[in-house]
């Protein structure tokens, strides 16, 4: 009986091919939209995750002051180089300890200038923040200790000041200081928060402190944890040490924050996931519209075939058999729409992923779900017309024109 219903349904749909196609258009678009949104969203999430991986998820960022939002700090006392040295000494789980202080200023070379951010730090910064050198060398110990006027620049700074020339050995001026460029950083591109990671200049922190800033402040300490060590244990050790050094009482709150990259990673991933779900939900609305389209056409179809239904009832079709016949038709219609939507989505997602430079990740789960959803829409919205057909009075139906 089911096989027969399927054949009948296919025949009926083919009979009104154009009408059937227009009917399922809503479902096609809905399914396609859902799949494209979710696929691109998942690609974006994966991209964010891998960028953060590249940063190193065993990275800890210690700043003075309580959490106040991005880039803001209260008037808690800054760190000092001695704090960094203490951390290096007393927390063996740390692989790298990089104190850093930054200032924004204009870099001048020849008749080019470029406003950028200068960070005073040491070589541990390169390890902690997963930087590699494209050319030149890191700072020497004596340069770090003496605070020499040397610097390492990022790819964007090089591009703005020197074009395609090799910057190593060249000089650039920061405020009153003239530095020699000893190294060039490998390009990293845009961060997941849209900032240009290659727009920076590194110099020994003592150089920044003595020759530019004029103080002993350390704005932030970057820490990387040795692989295999417990992150939570290490964070606790760091906090304990700093509380001691900053003379914070047992009952008082920290006057510094230790930010864990894992938090940021999951927060960012969480955000993109929420966005993806939201987009998917919006696209699902289109599926509902498609369902209404099916219900509409099925109602028309039942009216058109009233005589036929009367004949079937007279011959001995039971209510549930007539119901099945029309329900199957609705489900075949909507499933077909789902199938077309999936094909459309795969094509569109491939194109868009390439255009948006987002990785194309095919999730079999969402495709299966979208297909099942489209079939469900057929059952849901085919129900009312099918029931109407089944409940017809055969005598009335046979009299119908």
């Amino acid at each position, binding site marked *: *009986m089911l096989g*027969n219903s399927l054949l009948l349904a296919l025949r009926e749909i083919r*009979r009104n091919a154009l009408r059937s196609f227009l009917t399922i258009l809503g479902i096609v678009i809905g399914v396609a939209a859902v799949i494209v949104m979710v696929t691109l969203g998942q690609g974006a999430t994966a991209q964010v995750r891998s960028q953060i991986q590249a940063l190193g998820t065993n990275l800890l960022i210690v700043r003075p002051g309580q959490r106040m939002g991005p880039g803001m700090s209260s008037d808690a006392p800054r760190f000092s180089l001695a704090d960094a040295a203490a951390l290096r000494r007393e927390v063996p789980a740390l692989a790298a300890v990089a104190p850093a202080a930054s200032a924004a200023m204009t870099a001048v070379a020849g008749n080019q200038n470029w406003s950028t951010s200068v960070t005073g730090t040491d070589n541990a910064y390169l390890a902690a923040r997963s930087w590699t050198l494209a050319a030149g060398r890191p700072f020497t110990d004596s340069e770090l200790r003496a605070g020499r006027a040397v610097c390492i620049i990022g790819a964007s700074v090089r591009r703005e000041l020197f074009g395609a020339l090799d910057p190593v050995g060249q000089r650039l001026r920061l405020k009153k200081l003239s530095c020699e460029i000893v190294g060039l950083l490998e390009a990293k591109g845009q961060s997941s928060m849209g900032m240009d990671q290659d727009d920076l200049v590194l110099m020994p922190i003592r150089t920044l402190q003595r020759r530019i800033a004029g103080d002993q402040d350390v704005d932030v300490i970057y820490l990387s944890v040795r692989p295999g060590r417990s992150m939570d244990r290490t964070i606790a050790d760091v906090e304990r040490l700093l509380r001691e050094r900053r003379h914070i009482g047992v009952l008082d709150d920290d006057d510094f924050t230790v930010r864990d990259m894992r938090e940021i990673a999951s927060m960012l991933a969480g955000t993109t996931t929420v966005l993806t779900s939201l987009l998917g939900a919006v696209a699902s609305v289109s599926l509902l519209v498609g369902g209404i389209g099916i219900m509409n056409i099925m109602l028309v179809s039942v009216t058109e075939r009233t*005589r*036929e239904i*009367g*004949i*079937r*009832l*007279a*011959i*001995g*079709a*039971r*209510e*549930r*058999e007539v119901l099945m016949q029309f329900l199957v038709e609705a489900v075949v219609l909507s499933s077909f729409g789902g199938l077309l939507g999936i094909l459309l989505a795969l094509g569109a997602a491939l194109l868009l992923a390439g255009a948006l430079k987002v990785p194309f990740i095919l999730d079999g789960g969402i495709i299966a779900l979208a297909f099942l959803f489209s079939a469900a829409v057929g059952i849901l919205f085919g129900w009312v017309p099918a029931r109407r057909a089944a409940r017809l009075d*055969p*005598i009335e139906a*046979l009299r119908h024109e």
Partner: protein
Amino acid sequence: MDAGAASGQPPGSGALIELRGVTKVYGRGSAAMHALRGIDLDIAAGEMVAVMGPSGSGKSTAMNILGCLDAPTSGTYRFRGLDVGGLSRDQRALLRRHALGFVFQGFNLLARTTALENVELPLIYQRVSGPDRRRRAVEALAAVGLTAWARHTPAELSGGQQQRVAIARALVTDPAVILADEPTGNLDTARSREIMDLLCAMNRERGITVVMITHEPDMAAYARRVVHFLDGLVAGAAGE
């Protein structure tokens, strides 16, 4: 065509169809329309009965009740001793499926469907398997002389041919009764005679009981018994 009894009682005993005090009322109160006012009718297996009467006499209503398409307002309808009034809609559908065949004035074939598929339709609902179904449908079409037209759709068939397909469809389940509502109403004289000959042959050769509504005395003459309806009641009977 032998002489028949004077009222709704058949020549033989063991009535296949038994209506007792059947009424049918549409609407309520002052707007009530009494289509049937209490009829008694017995039809034995193997009979060929013609039902005649002016429009509004209740003959179509009675046929609908006989065909289990409608239920009486009061009274009983026994088919092979079974009280049809107590059956559910589904059960009546099953009764129609297995024991009844219908022939309509307007043929009522499925459009855009071949003659063979039309004849197979009742067997599909009976869940008969594909090869068996085809064989029986082919046999039924042969019995009505339309073997060559099996693959034609109703649009490609004449009125007479369509009615023959309808008769083949009514036959294919080997029913106990064929109910025909003005089977020759849309046909010319020559075709009408063909159809009546066919119905008589089915009645004679296969023992299928035939109950048919007609308003033409020429057609009624093919039946062995004529039941007259008037104002919702059975008015005597005449046999020829």
